[in-house]
């Protein structure tokens, strides 16, 4: 079959991103030809500012060097501007006469700077700020001239002004509006920004309209721009002067979608090339993405939406046709080193909105949150943008913030993101970090490493950064910091992933929520069936999605779906905990933390017999036998089993331990028999798999010696019964458990706890701890199911007990069943004999 021909007009970030996405989805579907007016491969236009500021070079910002096109079989015409589309003959024609036929055409012609229609706009020394050529000219002029004027106090203008200042020029920013960046900032934040930029030596003239640019007549500037003249404002004082010197004028007064080519081909344009939700123009063979496009009446000028459009367009070009672009919520980050500024969504407020404001001018911090109907719709942050990514996520997800409204202003964890986090020395503000400050404590990654990788590798997403640097890829506690670094390095191009809709992994476009729901609704029972029905992109998934699918299947269809050991992480397949040297650890079960002299003797015997190098107490108050060879595991379990002991689930996404204090059995303060309660709970939950690990604790009185306040379920005995707390976490990020309800009897503790855990098992996403699950669905949702609705509670509890019945002791299976035991056996070969024969 003849390959179809795809022609792309525009070799910029949107067009090439669409090509890259298309190559990922359908590498062999098209012969692809790209036209680019500039003489370079695709480069990262956003990073022209750091190039101007002298922090990077042009080579650093090339995203697709010319070799990339050749490697991917993409034909590239550089330096050729397409001037005509012949829609009847389905071909495009360039300025130099080059013709290319197309089956489908993608327009990514970008935008053109708006040039003020004033006298002198054509003079040498008057430029816009759009491409490498403009940047080179600014750098060259800065070396020979003194006075620069930037017209336009928006994002681009300020970055240009900052760069020219750093290159040694005397810079004045002229702005028509009463405050800077009025499209991204409210006045209070803009005034703080202005003060801080003035401290760096920039000058500002606000509410000034330029009337003309003046031609120089002196020896050094003949024929070149030499000054800028304003229109006299009403009430003008002649003493103020109407002219300022200008050897270089940068017009940064906005951009206009470049629709000239589309209009000449009679494609419908209205403030941009009009496209539908699959990025098609009124001629369905012709697509358009990027700054040249008007989608639902909006033309976007930041990169993040363009990437979303590119992805949808590629999906449609690949004949998948399932993706739709429905518009973007925007966020902005000014890329001026040392200034921390963030805005997102509707930050100006308006009818029906409330504003929550924190203003500390001396401290240099200003925050405004705009709330409408209990959802966050916009935010402006100045001086402390640590929570920017979190707020942006709330805006994009339109999450109900009713429950957290009272402390929303104080960030993700009441009083600053990072409270309870560890691993990066308590730092929460990336902007103040030095380049050699360690950000990721797990993998030893410093801020400078991350910034370098983002710039040199052209990274735009958190996942990219994780893959290339390993930062935030282990425990994730530094994710907030990494996101901040990403946001300040790539500015408006940064998009936090939408947590609710994020695909499980690269094998599918479906989110955890959709996959769970589909498995339930379609009664899917095996991993191949689920992958087939949901059109997985890889033949058998990966190490991320297979364990998730396996969990969703067995938790949704207990007794029907069969567990797949090959889709479990090794610990759950081998029923022991792998260590760095490939040996395993065994933690014999001690129900509720109780043991006997006889059991201790068995453990001691096992430790000696198998030469266990390390014996220690675990965090859950059990005994850990570390350094056991895999081939010895069944023997260890056989010895433990012979003494009536079972091993423990100290390794799985499962019930771990129930920690207890001595309680009323012995303690003079104890009000409830906490050890007994703990044993009952641990026995009830034996063999329970869950989205993530589950830890419980039972304390006999409010002194809470079992530390129940940081457990997934914490039970605290009081004289009149028990208080139940849920969704605590003592790990990566300390989270205090929240009060669920009070109950009277042991039976109620079991029923309420079981119902809560079953709800989590049914609704939680794989690898989502209870604290994250409850943060996502809200404690009210949990209470409605577990506390306020007795029938639902009973149903949940019964489903849990049903799923847990007939759980087979996996350790004895490994001892007794040859097929299972094989997993533990090393194959020995007759190597010497073979060599002799050879």
């Amino acid at each position, binding site marked *: 079959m003849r390959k179809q021909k795809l022609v792309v007009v525009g070799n910029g970030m949107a067009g090439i991103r669409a090509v890259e996405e298309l190559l990922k989805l359908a590498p062999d579907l098209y012969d692809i030809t790209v036209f680019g007016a500039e003489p370079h491969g695709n480069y990262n236009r956003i990073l022209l500012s750091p190039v101007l500021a002298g922090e990077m070079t042009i080579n650093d910002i090339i995203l697709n060097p010319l070799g990339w096109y050749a490697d991917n079989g993409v034909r590239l015409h550089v330096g050729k501007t397409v001037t005509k589309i012949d829609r009847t003959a389905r071909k495009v024609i360039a300025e130099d006469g080059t013709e290319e036929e197309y089956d489908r055409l993608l327009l990514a012609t970008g935008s053109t700077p708006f040039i003020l229609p004033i006298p002198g706009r054509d003079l040498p020394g008057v430029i816009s700020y759009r491409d490498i050529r403009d940047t080179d000219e600014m750098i060259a002029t800065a070396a020979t001239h003194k006075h620069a004027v930037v017209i336009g106090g928006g994002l681009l203008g300020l970055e240009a002004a900052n760069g020219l200042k750093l290159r040694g020029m005397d810079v004045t920013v002229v702005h028509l509006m009463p405050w800077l960046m009025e499209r991204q900032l409210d006045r209070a934040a803009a005034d703080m920004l202005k003060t801080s930029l003035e401290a760096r030596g920039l000058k500002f003239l606000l509410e000034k309209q330029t009337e003309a640019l003046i031609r120089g007549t002196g020896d050094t500037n003949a024929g070149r721009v030499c000054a800028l003249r304003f229109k006299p404002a009403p009430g003008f004082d002649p003493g103020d002067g109407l002219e300022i010197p200008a050897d270089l004028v940068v017009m940064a007064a906005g951009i206009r979608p470049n629709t000239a080519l589309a209009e000449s081909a009679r494609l419908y344009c209205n403030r941009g090339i009009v496209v539908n939700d699959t990025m098609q123009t009124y001629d369905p063979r012709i697509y358009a993405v990027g700054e040249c496009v008007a989608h639902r009446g909006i033309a976007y000028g930041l990169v993040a939406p363009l990437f979303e459009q590119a992805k949808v367009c590629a999906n449609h070009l690949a004949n998948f046709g399932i993706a739709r672009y429905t518009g973007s919520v925007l966020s902005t980050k000014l890329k001026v080193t040392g200034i921390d500024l963030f805005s997102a969504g509707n930050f100006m407020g308006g009818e029906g909105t409330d504003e929550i404001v924190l203003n500390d001018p001396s401290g240099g911090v200003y925050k405004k949150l705009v709330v409408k109907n209990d959802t966050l719709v916009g935010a402006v942050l100045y001086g402390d943008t640590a929570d920017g990514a979190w707020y942006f996520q709330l805006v994009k997800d339109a999450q109900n913030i009713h429950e957290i409204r009272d402390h929303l202003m104080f960030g993700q964890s009441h009083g600053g993101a990072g409270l309870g986090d560890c691993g990066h020395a308590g730092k929460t503000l990336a902007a103040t970090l030095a380049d050699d400050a360690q950000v990721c404590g797990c993998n030893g990654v410093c801020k400078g490493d991350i910034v370098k990788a983002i710039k040199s590798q052209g990274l735009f997403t958190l996942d990219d950064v994780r*893959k290339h640097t390993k930062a935030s*890829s282990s425990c994730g506690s530094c994710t907030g910091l990494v996101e901040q670094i990403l946001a300040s390095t790539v500015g408006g191009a940064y998009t936090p992933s939408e947590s609710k809709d994020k695909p499980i992994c690269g094998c599918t476009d479906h989110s955890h929520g959709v996959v769970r729901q589909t498995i339930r609704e379609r009664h899917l029972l095996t991993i191949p069936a689920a992958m087939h029905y949901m059109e997985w992109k890889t*033949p058998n998934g990966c*190490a991320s999605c297979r364990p998730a699918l396996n969990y969703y299947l067995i938790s949704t269809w207990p007794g029907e779906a069969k567990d797949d050991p*090959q889709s479990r992480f090794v610990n759950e397949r081998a029923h022991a905990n792998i260590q*760095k040297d*490939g040996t395993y650890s065994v933690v014999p079960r001690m129900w509720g933390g109780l043991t006997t002299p006889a059991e201790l003797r068995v453990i001691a015997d096992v430790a000696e017999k198998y030469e266990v190098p390390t014996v220690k107490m675990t965090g859950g108050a059990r005994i850990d036998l570390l350094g056991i060879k895999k081939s010895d595991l069944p023997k260890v379990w056989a010895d433990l089993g012979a003494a009536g002991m079972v091993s423990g689930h100290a390794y799985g996404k499962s019930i771990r331990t129930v920690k207890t204090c001595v309680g009323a059995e012995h303690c003079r303060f104890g009000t409830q028999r906490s050890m007994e309660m703990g044993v009952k709970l641990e026995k009830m939950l034996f063999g329970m798999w869950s989205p993530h690990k589950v830890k419980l604790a039972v304390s006999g009185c409010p002194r809470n010696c079992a530390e129940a306040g940081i457990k997934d379920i914490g039970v605290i005995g009081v004289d009149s019964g028990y208080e139940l707390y849920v969704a605590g976490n003592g790990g990566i990020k300390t989270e205090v458990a929240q009060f669920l309800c009070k109950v009277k009897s042991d039976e109620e503790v079991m029923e309420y706890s079981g119902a809560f855990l079953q709800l989590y098992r049914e609704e939680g996403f794989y690898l989502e701890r209870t604290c994250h699950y409850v943060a996502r669905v809200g404690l009210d949702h949990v209470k409605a199911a577990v506390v306020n609705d007795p029938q639902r509670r009973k149903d949940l509890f019964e489903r849990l007990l049903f799923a847990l019945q007939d759980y087979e002791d996996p350790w004895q299976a490994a001892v007794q069943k040859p097929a299972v035991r094989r997993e533990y056996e090393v*194959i020995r070969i007759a*190597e010497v004999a073979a*060599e002799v024969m050879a």
Partner: protein
Amino acid sequence: MNDWIKVCALDEIAPQGSRVVASSQGDIALFRTADDRVFGLHDKCPHKGGPLSQGIVHGDTVTCPLHGFKIGLKDGEAVAPDKGCARRFAVKLDGGAVWLQLS
């Protein structure tokens, strides 16, 4: 040239699973893919020496259980952007049995 050594029956390796063979050249991991191809790699991740045999097998790749490096089964190479290579051993299937050649 060394001879082929018969190691085990194909059935003794689970689909998408692996077995470890002890040899004079160190532990060798034998992997069986979902479509019943078999590959042999030195059982040591090029990253930090993790036992690749204990990883999850998917497609032509195994993910190391220690830190999630993905290693190609055909060539032993880490999947980009990670770098590194695990030594390959020649493996063939013949008459329902798995054969290994020590290099």
